């Protein structure tokens, strides 16, 4: 019965309710600061429901449309935290669209609902609807500033995103046609018993899998579907850039793991096939991201390419999941831990960029010169996050990389790990260049860089996260491992 299952959807439903309240409140009140408070309250309530469900047993609800398991709950918590930090960090930024604050907060909440559903979706239909719910809200948010760059970013994101989702949909149609099912577990049953010994025996399935990988690849920005990333990241409002790079990517990885591992993980040759596919894409993605990032002069664009490179590292985990054929959970929990560390690190970096760029009104790396003297705390925070992105101690990035690479080596992906380590060395060059400019350059003026308490709070939380994950990773690793245990093995 459906009504008795509604309480398992409380995190999404409550957040959706708060989003509607924000829209209505915005129409009837003058004091817009309240809206941010209501949004944060909604996120906290939703996070409370999520936490309360952590111990609940794993079940599928709504005729197997959604799965309620720790894997989904882990991601929901991560997404809620990201959305909360973004709203806090937007406080210095919303003055640029004073009249449209209500829409801004409501859209952030609605896209969070979409992503939360995406991580829980266990049916092709619900996956598609959730994907589009988050996607369409993000298209609007990307063009929110309504200036030339922002609308250009929004249009590029929308057109490419719509093409990608159409391609994904065609892949879904093929998979549905071959199996006659849309729920992932049912698809798994059919695929497992197919009388074929390799993908080449069934070109339609091969095409379906490639189209699915392409559609999801757009969401996580892996090569060759990465071309939208730098433009959209540069043009979109900076808080939204941060949101895109963290939340949207995390949800994308969640849905890829679920679709490929649950529905297509059954015959071992199939699992290995897509594992190798992701391994190759991973190597190309991180190399391209890192090499092109070197020549960037705009810090948002540089962080955009850096996030492509980070997606490459994350895909090492994806490749491990495939190659290991469900043999152990190290690859999956490594992926989750990496996402956790990547989320706090990248959010921290972008929040520092919001604070600095808002004051100096420029995104150029050259204009960050002497920031160490003008805004020592912001510079320290940005440095910490950049160091974590390289993967140096004592930060989260190091532990995450060791964890995920260790799992990969364990399952015979040594060549991929070597490529990844070389890439990390390349990446140190462009990350440290920013650090050098900030601390060794001469400041252009003595003017301080002020920021609101909300922004400072969110930045402190991110830095705290980076350090905690780097120094005492044990309990977080335990959380990631508990989250992937639901997939058997």
């Amino acid at each position: 019965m459906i009504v008795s299952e509604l309480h398992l959807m409380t995190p999404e439903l409550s957040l959706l309710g708060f989003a509607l309240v924000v829209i209505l409140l915005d129409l009837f009140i003058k004091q817009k600061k309240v809206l941010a408070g209501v949004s944060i309250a909604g996120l906290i309530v939703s996070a409370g429901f999520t936490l309360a469900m952590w111990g609940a047993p794993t079940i599928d609800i709504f005729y197997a449309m959604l799965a309620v398991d720790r894997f989904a709950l882990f991601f929901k918590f991560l997404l809620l935290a990201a959305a909360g930090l973004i709203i806090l960090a937007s406080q210095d930024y919303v003055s640029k669209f004073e009249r449209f604050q209500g829409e801004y907060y409501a859209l952030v909440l609605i896209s969070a609902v979409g992503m939360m559903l995406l991580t829980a979706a266990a049916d092709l239909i619900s996956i598609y609807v959730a994907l589009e719910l988050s996607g369409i809200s993000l298209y609007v948010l990307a063009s929110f500033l309504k200036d030339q760059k922002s609308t250009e970013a929004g249009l590029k994101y929308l057109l490419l995103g719509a093409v990608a989702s159409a391609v994904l949909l065609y892949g879904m149609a093929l998979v549905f046609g071959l199996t006659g099912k849309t729920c992932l577990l049912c698809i798994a049953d059919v695929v497992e018993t197919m009388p074929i010994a390799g993908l080449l025996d069934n070109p339609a399935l091969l095409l379906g899998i490639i189209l699915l990988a392409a559609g999801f690849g757009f969401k996580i920005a892996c090569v060759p579907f990465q071309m939208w990333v730098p433009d959209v990241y540069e043009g979109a409002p900076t808080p939204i850039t941060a949101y895109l790079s963290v939340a949207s990517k995390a949800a994308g990885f969640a849905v890829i793991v679920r679709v490929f591992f649950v529905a297509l993980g059954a015959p071992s040759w199939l699992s290995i096939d897509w594992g190798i596919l992701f391994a190759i894409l991973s190597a190309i993605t991180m190399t391209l991201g890192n090499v092109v990032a070197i020549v960037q002069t705009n810090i948002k664009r540089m962080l955009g390419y850096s996030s492509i490179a980070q997606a490459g590292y994350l895909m090492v985990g994806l490749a491990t999941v495939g190659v290991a054929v469900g043999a152990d959970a190290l690859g999956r929990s490594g992926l989750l831990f990496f996402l956790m560390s990547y989320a706090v690190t990248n959010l921290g970096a972008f929040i520092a960029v919001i604070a600095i760029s808002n004051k100096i009104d420029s995104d150029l790396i050259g204009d960050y010169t002497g920031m160490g003297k003008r805004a020592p705390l912001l510079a320290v925070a940005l440095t910490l996050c950049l160091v974590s992105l390289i993967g140096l101690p004592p930060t989260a990035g190091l532990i995450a990389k060791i964890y995920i690479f260790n799992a990969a080596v364990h399952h015979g992906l040594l060549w991929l790990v070597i490529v990844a380590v070389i890439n990390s060395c390349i990446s140190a060059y462009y990350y440290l260049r920013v650090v050098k400019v900030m601390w060794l350059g001469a400041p252009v003026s003595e003017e301080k860089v002020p920021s609101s308490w909300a922004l400072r709070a969110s930045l402190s939380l991110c830095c705290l996260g980076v350090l905690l994950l780097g120094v005492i990773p044990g309990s977080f690793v335990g959380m990631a491992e508990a989250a992937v245990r639901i997939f058997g093995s």
Partner: protein
Amino acid sequence: MLADYGYIGLLLIVAILFTVSMPLLALSLSFLGIIPRKSNPDKTSTYECGMETIGKTWVQFNFRYYLYAIIFVALDVLTVFLYPWAVNLKELGLLGLISVAVFFAILVVGYIYAWRKGALEWK
């Protein structure tokens, strides 16, 4: 199956015969002088009845139509969800009614938004 196509083919032949014969008939009648040939401006105008057209055909439409169009596009397609519900009204019962009510409540929020933002006014 093939016989079904036969009917379509028959219709096609009739259609071709009709379209070919009618202009031929008209041409032959005018050639024989049965139809008088008197031209006047009303006959040669694009539309024989109604208003005279003013200006060019390629005009930009008033921007305000776009707001109506966008609200219409987004909301009218949603009625497609009502068909499956309406067909199974009895079986779905009260639960179905409540679900549709919630669905409409969300839509109404959209309408209230459009109304308060002045999108429904012709300024």
